[in-house]
């Protein structure tokens, strides 16, 4: 077991709110400079930049984790992480059929660029990606689990898309094993307000939408890394976050 610096919540230029400079190579390069070792790409309701992201992470020596920031039917944001690129792309297809189709207005929300390994544009998603899906929050862990992944509520300390702002509390009956805080300093405060959180893994990631928001490495997760491979580390990460704290 060794500690690994992680950032498990970032956006690429495919998210409309993601800066167009957030190409897979820029993102991986910047995260590497910041000292991150395990990096997830979690665009809104899509995994379509994950193939290029994998190639970019390889270039910069990072362990890539394919992911998605899912918008539930209640407009709660949930970070989903997968063991393999293939699993993430299968999940992407499942979610695509369940997204609310609202045309993206690029002038207001920004462009949604699908990029290749060399950061070239190979397509655009025409529908506004962060719109709600018809997937209820309580269905998310099971659905993500079906693809071998894990999921947990994103930035519960934020008003926009945070589960506590929307539901008024942390749902006790949904089998989450982790939660994300934007600001790790607020952990004690949240644990006191919602004691259930004491039993869950607490993750704090950057939610970077532009290069400046990529944080210097600060938080680690202990991972079983023998025999070492990036596939093994991903599985170890999902195992660790996928079970409650003992």
């Amino acid at each position, binding site marked *: 077991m060794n500690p690994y610096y992680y950032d498990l919540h970032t956006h690429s230029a495919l998210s409309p709110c993601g800066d167009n400079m957030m190409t897979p190579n820029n993102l991986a390069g910047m995260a590497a400079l910041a000292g991150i070792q395990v990096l997830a790409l979690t665009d809104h309701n899509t995994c379509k930049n994950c193939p290029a992201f994998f190639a970019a992470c390889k270039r910069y020596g990072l362990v890539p984790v394919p992911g998605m920031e899912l*918008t539930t039917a*209640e*407009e709660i944001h949930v970070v989903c992480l997968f063991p393999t690129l293939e699993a993430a792309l299968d999940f992407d297809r499942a979610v695509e059929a369940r997204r*609310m189709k*609202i045309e993206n*207005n690029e002038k*207001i*929300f920004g462009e949604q660029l699908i990029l290749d390994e060399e950061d070239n544009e190979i397509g655009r998603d025409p529908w*506004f990606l962060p*719109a*709600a899906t018809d997937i209820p929050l309580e269905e998310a862990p099971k659905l993500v689990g079906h693809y071998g992944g894990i999921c947990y509520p994103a930035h519960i300390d934020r*008003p*926009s898309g945070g589960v506590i*702002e929307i539901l008024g509390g942390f749902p006790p009956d949904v089998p989450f094993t982790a939660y994300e805080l934007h600001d790790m300093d607020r952990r004690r405060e949240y644990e006191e307000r919602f004691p259930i959180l004491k039993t869950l893994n607490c993750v704090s990631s950057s939610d970077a939408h532009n290069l400046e928001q990529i944080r210097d490495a600060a938080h680690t997760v202990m991972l079983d890394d023998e025999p070492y491979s990036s596939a093994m580390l991903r599985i170890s990460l999902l195992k660790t976050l996928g079970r409650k704290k003992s």
Partner: protein
Amino acid sequence: MIGGIMTVTELLDKLPLRALCLPDPDRDVTGGYTGDLLSWVMGSAQPGQAWVTIMSNVNVVAVATLCDVSCVILAQGVTLEPEVLKTAESKLVNVLTSPLPAFELCLTVGELIR
């Protein structure tokens, strides 16, 4: 009085509303829509409508701009952060607030513009 199309300013005069920002006061209010899930509002609200909501995060302004509503009316005393209001001002989004709950608010606005 029998109502009809009226401007945002006229609405302000006649109802228990307070303007949080009013960059486009003469905009006609042609109808209304109420909802708090932004995705639904994006798919349904029409240009010129007054949008009644309790949502207060920064995305409210983007959705109001996209749908080109005549004003956002925040129910039950909800307000927006000064930063968000600044954005609303620059995007020409009228933002009003009222102590009334959304249902009563819709009823009174509806009576006026019917």
